[in-house]
């Protein structure tokens, strides 16, 4: 492990990248198994599933940054898990909004 210490892996970032990789793998599998044609949505540009995923991910990043910048990351609840209780940041709202946005993007764009 010591020779990748410079990469400074942490559990949360590892989970994030694993989820991202799984999403990409799923999308690749879907593209191969169920090929689809481009379609034109509310942006009036032809998009594929991959394009819509890209837009959703970028929007998710922007939504999280806007939330951090304008609303902040105050704790909204404390979960009584383990010895040290886990504080839940209001940033999870941004995550929820991102998921809703992603669903909307996939349905309408």
């Amino acid at each position, binding site marked *: 492990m010591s020779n990748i210490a*410079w990469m*400074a892996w942490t559990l949360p970032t590892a989970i994030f990248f694993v989820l991202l990789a799984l999403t990409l793998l799923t999308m690749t599998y879907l593209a191969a198994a169920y090929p689809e044609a481009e379609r034109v949505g509310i942006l009036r540009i032809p998009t594929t599933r991959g394009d819509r995923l890209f837009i959703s991910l970028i929007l998710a990043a922007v939504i999280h940054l806007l939330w951090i910048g304008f609303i902040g990351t105050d704790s909204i609840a404390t979960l009584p898990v383990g010895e040290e209780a886990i504080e839940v940041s209001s940033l999870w709202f941004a995550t929820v909004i991102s998921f809703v946005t992603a669903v909307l993007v996939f349905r309408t764009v």
Partner: protein
Amino acid sequence: MDKTVNQKAWFLVLPVFLIVAFSAVLPLMTVVNYSFQDTFGNNQFFWNGVGWFKELLDPSTDLGSRFFASLWRNLFFSAVILAIEVPLGIIVALSMPRDGWRVAACLVILALPLLIPWNVVGTIWQIFGRPDIGLLGYVLNNIGIEYNYVSNEFDAWATVIVMDVWHWTSLVALLCYAGLKSIPDAYYQAAQIDGASRWAVFTAIQLPKMNRVLLIAVLLRFMDSFMIYTEPFVVTGGGPGNSTTFVSIELVKIALGQFDLGKAAALSLVYNLIIIIVCWVFYTVMTNAGVDRQRTQGAA
């Protein structure tokens, strides 16, 4: 007819995937890891959550004020050089000869600045502008215009902008010239028969035909100027004060000057996000501009 599908070609792309993974994906993952942590060296990291991002997006903190100041400075710089280079490039392209040996001569002269490496361009202008030994600085000071890019903010900005215009207007001009060359003579003859003015020819024939290349020129020049590092770094070093410190210069100062890897990582991710969004918008507009036109033509 069914096409034979052979997926073996993917193996030929494999080396590229490996190289990109090694040179881009792994470093990017590392930057993401750094952006959530703090370090004092020796590969020891401490979890900081979204702390750096909070600081970065809050203009009342040191990091945030530096980020936003350099971001606005950089956007202003990009806007100024686009506002100069695009019209100037069009004018140069319009006044270029259409045939004969002079075309080749013009193309070579225009291409020269593009072939000079960034740091050399910086060095050229750094010496050119010096009041003691530089031709430009010496002449300006001797005809009564006080000019010193080391101590005066306006002079530093003027030098960096003129340098960029000198370096890159050729690119816009060459792209526009290529666009102009693709216009068939029949268009001009028709305009002449109709008695169109020079301005009418420009707005109705030349500008629409240059549409696509202009979009490419704006995209290239915006991205390049938004990521500019070497030239202002060599000429002004970001000074006087912080007046020509653009985002990339600020980023290098934080990452390599202060060795604040967490702050630098958060800044570079936001910087990267802005660039990705702008690229995507430009790319989408570019690839769909032609499609829309075909569609409307098809409907008409």
